[in-house]
């Protein structure tokens, strides 16, 4: 008898792979930490006491469930029904906190005293500093020195929350370099420190662990959409992809629903072919960065290319291995959105719906007119964060 296996699985394998992407390409110095996490994360997350603590925090501290909002005026403009999953209404203003509340609870169960994190836009740094304050743990955040300038309000927020913000001055001085520095910090402090990675990147088990913590987004979309429309499944789920954590969370419970198209918006910067871009799937090829094999912007010699985007949170030369697999297998549709398209979409949402989105999120909104939707189509956009942190940039276009 022939057993029909599904052609492609979107779950992580035992060894941490999604198709050919993923794994744990880490120096031996990190092996014990990553292995400790790998051995324990599923058991910890499966523990009812852990789940109870997590759910209580998600409800009372983060403010979940976040609303699913029918954006009527935007729908009219786009020519299809558009719902917004309001992750911008999470405490601290973005989806990032879904992951940090989960990981801080894991860190506590592993008896870690100190937290290190990287941040791009500063949203993950703020979300990490926030939960560290809540739990009374020391917090060190690495941030590219360019990003510290363009996301100054978030630097101040982190400091006010008691975190130490350390500028990453190497390379492009953005998210990639902040991640390098955070990894070096972890190598130097292997026993008492937990590294809270902010996206579905890094060595296994991080991509899977972060995706699971963010999966609450699609879990809620399913019930909310059912209540509002009588159907669980939209035709499209749309999200921006830096490393891809809000997208992974919004896609998670739809990965095995082929009728739902998964749409990822990457940052094209000044244009995919301009030499100033962060459109990873358009420009990259398979390679290893920050502990996993993924799609990576790089030279022919395998040196990582310095990316560019107006959005600090999308200014990264790779994507999470799950997304590399979605791209390669054709399960996901990837769009490259320029700085200008994103800014316009940010202004459009502000004027039509009274919601100022983060510039990262604006990339997802800018994909809507490119998707050739029918009037009967239903799209859910993951509104990953609010735009307060970006006012200095938006105001240049006022």
């Amino acid at each position, binding site marked *: 008898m022939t057993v029909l296996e599904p052609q492609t699985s979107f779950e992580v394998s035992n060894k941490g792979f999604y198709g050919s992407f993923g794994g744990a390409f880490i*120096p*031996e110095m990190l092996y014990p930490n990553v292995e400790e996490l790998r051995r324990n994360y599923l058991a910890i997350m499966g523990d009812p006491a852990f789940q109870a603590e997590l759910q209580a925090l998600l409800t009372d501290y983060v403010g979940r469930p976040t609303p699913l909002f029918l954006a009527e005026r935007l729908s009219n403009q786009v020519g299809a029904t558009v719902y917004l999953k309001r992750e911008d209404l999470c405490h601290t203003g973005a989806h990032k906190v879904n992951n940090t509340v989960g990981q801080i609870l894991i860190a506590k169960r592993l008896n870690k005293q100190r937290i290190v994190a990287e941040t791009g836009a500063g949203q993950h740094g703020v979300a990490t500093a926030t939960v560290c304050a809540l739990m009374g743990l020391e917090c060190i955040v690495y941030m590219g020195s360019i990003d510290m300038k363009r996301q100054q309000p978030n630097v101040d927020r982190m400091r006010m929350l008691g975190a130490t913000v350390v500028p990453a001055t190497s390379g492009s001085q953005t998210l990639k370099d902040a991640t390098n520095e955070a990894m*070096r910090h972890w190598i*130097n402090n*292997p*026993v008492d420190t937990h590294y809270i990675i902010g996206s579905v990147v890094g060595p296994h088990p991080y991509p899977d662990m972060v995706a699971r913590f963010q999966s609450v987004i699609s879990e809620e979309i399913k019930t909310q959409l059912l209540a509002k429309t009588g159907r669980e499944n939209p035709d499209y789920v749309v999200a921006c992809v830096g490393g891809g954590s809000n997208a992974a969370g919004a896609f998670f419970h739809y990965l095995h629903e082929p009728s739902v198209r998964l749409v990822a918006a990457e940052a094209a910067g000044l244009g995919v072919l301009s030499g100033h871009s962060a459109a990873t799937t358009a420009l990259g090829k398979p390679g*290893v960065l920050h502990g996993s094999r993924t799609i990576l912007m790089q030279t022919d*010699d*395998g040196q990582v290319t310095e990316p560019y985007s107006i959005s600090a949170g999308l200014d990264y030369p790779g994507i999470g291995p799950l997304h590399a697999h979605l791209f390669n297998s054709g399960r996901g549709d990837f769009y490259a959105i320029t700085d200008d398209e994103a800014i316009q979409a940010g202004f459009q949402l502000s004027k039509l719906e009274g919601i100022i989105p983060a510039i990262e999120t604006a990339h997802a909104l800018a994909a809507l007119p490119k998707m050739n939707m029918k009037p009967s189509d239903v799209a859910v956009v993951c509104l990953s964060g609010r735009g307060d942190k970006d006012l200095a940039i938006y105001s240049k276009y006022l």
Partner: protein
Amino acid sequence: MESQLVDKQAVQANRITDAFTQKSGSLLNVYFTAGFPNLGDTVSVLEGLEQAGADFVEIGMPYSDPVADGETIQKSNMQALENGMSLTVLFEQLADIRSRVSVPILLMGYINPVLQFGVERFCQKCQEVGVDGVILPDLPLDLYLDEHEPIFRHYGILNIFLITPQTTDDRIRLIDEHSEGFIYMVSSASITGSTSGVSDEMLAYFDRINAMNLRNARLIGFGIKDSETFQMANKYASGAIIGSAFIRLLQENGADVGKITAFVEGVRG
């Protein structure tokens, strides 16, 4: 065909393993970055180190994102890349190196440039020019065994693994089983170039590993920078690896054979 390959492997393996049979201790391995401080310096530095009596040389293949390295080596990597160094250029520079030096040569670097070059093509090139071993810190044991070991063996290139104070005994045994040449013993939980000095904890770790009676020799690296730290390492292992301190010398003096000799003599004490 088969036997020819096996012969090659035996010859290749010998330069590193021979070094350990010829000399029982105080073996010195010196790291430098290819194409640093100038693109054309690779061979001069290599010759300088052989003349100065280094027992091994470890040539760094520069990479844009060297996460296991501290500032000194990071900067040398950036400088070398700006100078135009790449694997293609490096293999060109090393093309007739075996007519010039006989010291065992290791290449040290990160996996991504090797993947882009092609693992098989890389091993083939190593064999062709006479490189004896490689150190790829972000290619861990399990992925090496799953995907690359047969290719490395086929071309007779030794893959050197690291252990750290946090590596469990079971894992050290596993690494020992799959290692040939030597085990790279990272002295403390740190990136390269740390200045933390010698602690009781470190000595306890050295004693613990000594007592394991591993089948492979060990060289101690990270934090070895002068005669004092070198002598300390020699008490607990077959020798040591110096990196950042030598990079600082090259940064200040360039590929100056006299300075290189004085440095190596100074370390030997």
